[in-house]
């Protein structure tokens, strides 16, 4: 599944959940598609929920569509200055080769975050900016989109870089993966949708199991290889 497909799937899931919770009696396909498009465009999830609660179900051409035009811009955006497409330039690069991680065990990945945009990146606002990540399979296809957040302890000003210890939880199953570090402007957008440079690094994830389970696996492996006459050291 590609990146964009996964984004669409993710937004559709949010819309379904919101309708189920706040408007279970409503929700045509047209209305839901409307909200998926709005969220993909960066519309705030909380605003969507409030609008559903207030009775606005969405869809172009609906009686309440002028309600949209009348809606003011979120105050928070004014603080950041004018932010548009391509204005989230920057990068997040791990400082070390990632090597082997353990399935499901939180790890700290030191990374250099560079802000090449025109506005401050900070976590201490109502729509914070946090470091996050995606997990891809070894071929680069998206596997898990919503990585845990790491907040920025200090803001990163335009033109500056910062060293950040990113808290990462590897996938729950062992295998070969790729880790893509990125940033997220909560309720607004993922940085890579707006000009942020992303790349992914290979990671091997090995089992992280209790001692006794690990030991049994080792003993099974030993028994198999001795029965075939190969040396295990």
């Amino acid at each position, binding site marked *: 599944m590609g990146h964009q497909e996964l984004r669409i799937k993710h937004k559709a899931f949010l819309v379904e959940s919101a309708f189920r919770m706040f408007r279970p009696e409503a929700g045509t396909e047209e209305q839901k598609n409307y909200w998926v498009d709005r969220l993909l465009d960066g519309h705030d999830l909380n605003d969507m929920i409030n609008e559903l609660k207030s009775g606005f179900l969405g869809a172009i051409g609906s009686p309440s569509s002028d309600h949209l035009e009348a809606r003011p811009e979120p105050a928070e955006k004014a603080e950041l200055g004018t932010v548009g497409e391509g204005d989230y330039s920057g990068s997040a690069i791990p400082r070390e080769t990632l090597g082997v991680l353990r399935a499901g065990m939180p790890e700290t990945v030191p990374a250099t975050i560079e802000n090449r945009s025109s506005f401050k990146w900070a976590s201490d606002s109502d729509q914070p900016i946090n470091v996050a990540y995606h997990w891809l399979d070894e071929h680069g296809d998206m596997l898990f989109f919503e990585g845990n957040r790491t907040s920025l302890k200090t803001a990163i000003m335009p033109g500056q870089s910062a060293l950040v210890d990113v808290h990462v939880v590897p996938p729950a199953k062992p295998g070969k993966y790729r880790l893509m570090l990125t940033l997220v402007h909560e309720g607004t957008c993922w940085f890579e949708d707006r000009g942020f440079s992303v790349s992914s690094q290979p990671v091997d994830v090995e089992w992280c*199991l209790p001692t006794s389970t690990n030991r049994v696996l080792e003993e099974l492996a030993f028994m198999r290889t001795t029965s075939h006459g190969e*040396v295990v050291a």
Partner: protein
Amino acid sequence: MKVLIDLQVAQTGTNPEAGKYALALSKAAAQEVGENGELLVLLNGSLEATIDELRAELEGFIKQENIRVWYAPDGMGSICDGNPSLRKVAAHTREAVIAEQEPDLVILPSLWLGWADEAVISFDYEPPGCPIATILPGESFHGPQKELEQGRRGEWHRSLLEKLSRADFVLDVPGLSEPELCNGIPDTNRVRWPSAEADQLVEALQVSVRSLLGEARSEKNGFAEKVMRSLNLDGVKPKLAFVSPLPPEKTGIGYYSAELLPELAHYYDIDVVVDQEQVSDEWIESNCTIRSVEWFWKHGLEYDRVVYQFGNSRFHAHMWDLIEKIPGVAVIHDFYLGDAVAYREDGAGKGLALPRELYLSHGYDALKPIITDGDRAEAIRLYPCSYSPIREAKGVIVHSNHARDLAREWYGDTVADTFEVIPHLRVLPERHPEEKQAARQRLGIAEDAFLICSFGVVNKSKLNHRLYSAWCDSRVANDPNARIVFVGETPDAYGQRLRSEIEGSSYSNRISFTGWADSETFQDYLAAADVAVQLRTNSRGETSGTVLDCMANGLATICNAHGSFAEVPDSGVWKLEDRFEEEDLITALDTLWSDHTRREQLGVDGREQIVKSYSPEFCSNRYFEAIEQAYSQHRRSRLNVIKTASEVLDSAMQHEVLAACIGNSLPVSTPQRQLLVDVTVVAREDLRTGVQRVVRSILSQLLDMDLPGYRIEPVYTNPSMDGFFYARQFTQEFMGGEHSVLPDEPMEAHTGDIFLGLDLHGDGIAAQCGYLEGLRDRGVKVVFVVHDLLPVTHPHWFPGPEEQTFENWLSCITKFDGAICVSQTTADELEKWMVSRNVERKRPYRIGVAHNGADIRQSVPSMGLPEDAEQVLAQIEAKPSFLMVGTVEPRKGVTQVLDAFEHLWQQGKDYSLVLVGKRGWNIEDLADRLENHPEKGSRLFWLQGISDEYLERTYAASTCLIAGSEGEGFGLPLIEAAQQEIPILARDIPVFREVAGAHAEYFTADTAQQLSASIDGWLNGYKMQRYPDSKGMPFLTWRGSCEKYLDFMLQ
């Protein structure tokens, strides 16, 4: 007597009548076994729905930790439509679990299980080595006769009849058993159940069980012999792999092994396994096949017996990995093995070997020298770190009772009791008078010299400096023909210093050091010497064979009664006290120098003792018995299960789920039970709330305490995974470590462990409820700490979802063994809640009380004062100041108190109000009032997020503590005020009465005016010295509180 009963028949529901009888039989057996024996019950973990109920049924009859649970592989199914290969693995797993308990009798109430359910009954893979008893079945067990002869079910029935015929005892129960359905079952071993009416059933059961146990007891020794005989492979010597360094490697153990092997060869056909280029012993080269370690990895499991010689040096580094996969008997020459483990890390590429072994063997305490000071040497000196080979071995041999005592001290009775003590063997050399002179000639020692030798590496533990010191003050030193020779290396600074001192003295031409001595040189000095002096201190469980060498050579030997030397027979040596006086050593030297007859006799006596207690025949026979005994038992039987699994399952099925079932049934153990302490929130972030102060304080005490038989393991849970994890990184930092050496890993827990839900995280615990129920079923005691029930008793004080979250948390925690409440008030509330929610319990739920401790200094206090602190404190002290401590939130009564003070200020009263506590939930209006109050900074102070040091100073500057809360779990500020000896004015609520008793004044106030009158009235009384004195208020220290936790959990 140890009796094990398999209660699957009570779990499956296939035959409720049989299940009822089995349960009644268990209770009768428990009473019959009584205090002098032990009853174990075995349950099938796959039938999990029945476990809690059966545990409840057996409550009061047997200890919960005597109920063992084993796990069949997922997807096994029943006999008729399940997976036969998985069933084989399940059968072997179950039998291995039984065998490892080493029962004296196994009772299988019913064999007719498994056809259409997930029970597993067999005794084919690991015969337990004791009698098996079962109940003779009847029609109700297996259906009409005619059905039994057809198809797979008939085949199954016939197999069960065959099993029945192999049982040692068969209980014939009137009304249940129908003998005519089981033609061909011998009558000889039947134990007839006396007929009984229903109301006499218990008595009848007891009679039957008594009879059965009596029969089993008389069979016990016969069974043991039968097992030992079965090990004798029809007169053919078993094939034994002997893993040891051998000559020419420079280790005493190598030479010991070379002496032992010819004797052991009387019993076994021996191959030696070495990690060296060549072996230079004639007998070994001629009589043994020499194998490499690499070869042994491939073929080690083909041997009938394996023996490992473990010692504290690099020569043994490869054995740790070998014994894990190829189990055998471990001969532990040195009880402290830290140097060998360190070599594994530094020289053999086994990263973190030393910290892992320290932690495994001894817990977090043993890591302290490394994580705080980076001092590995100190950790090695203090801790044996020898548990791994002991755990992995099929049996352990040591050479002294002292070594076994050390095992008892460090690892407990259960481990130490399995040790066999076999003295070092000594071949008695032939001695001819001319040998002494011949040896002296070879060594260049004069014929008339009086030669004193001290054998072994020169180091501090050998007290070589004391021999030199005694020599200097002795008469023998005045004899120009008297000499001392230190026969051994001087590898360290101690030896170098002694050598320099002697070389600079007037004795430099009469005292010498040989350095490393090969075997021939060593033997020459034994022959040439007149007296040997072998001293020792700081024994680490090693056994010096050198004293025995001296005795065997008829050499008059002086030693001190330290460590294993204390066990050398008194008559064979001149034995000094362990901490001997120098004059005693001088007396010994002078006497043996001057009294030739006495010296000769001592030598003769020494040789006699060697013949009596250390002869090769005697020792090798003891070795044989110990090895055979070890192999007749069922330690490490998990590997046999693995072998079955690898034979019957293809590799795709040998996955982590299967491994978890086998691992949970037959786990890798630690030497101590675990006390697992949930610190999830604190490990993530210390928000310095009251709850987190409790968590940090109790954890600190637990880590500091010496709790024999238990290790403290802080754990946490991760929302994205199932289960808990060892919080090793957090704990190492919490202990003050600058370097964290061990990573976090998934937690595992087994019967006898305890889980303490110390930290408070409602969502996290509710999410792990199923996991915790699994632990409970497995025999882990699960206990939670309850601070208060305010979110459910006063939900309006908390954010919306909090009430439901808390209800969910309470619903979860009341499924387990009990709760520790921080006050009697909280305990009463919890009981009331359980009644009101009609909480259904199968087993008793215990509720205990442990007040929080109140010694700020012992709760890892935070330090630091802001710049304006002194000015603020001065202002507080300048007027009558009333202090409130705690998070500023609705239930704390701050609004009413502020209103009351505004009333007082309007009346012209010049009092101050000081609030200490962070901003809480839902106080926007109050916070605005406080931030913008005209008295702010003058007579109103709000100190947020201050350190413990600042808090303590604020208490001291204040006149009175106002405890205005409308609801609390405990009321720590009352005790802190009492410690500071400041008076208390508290709202009249039950928990404040409980904590403060008569040491506070109480108020009831529905309005601010009422409260202001109370405050004013109190101050008037204060001025006239009429107020309750908080001094003397009883309170617990954190240590005292922690002891109450432990009393509750370990009951």
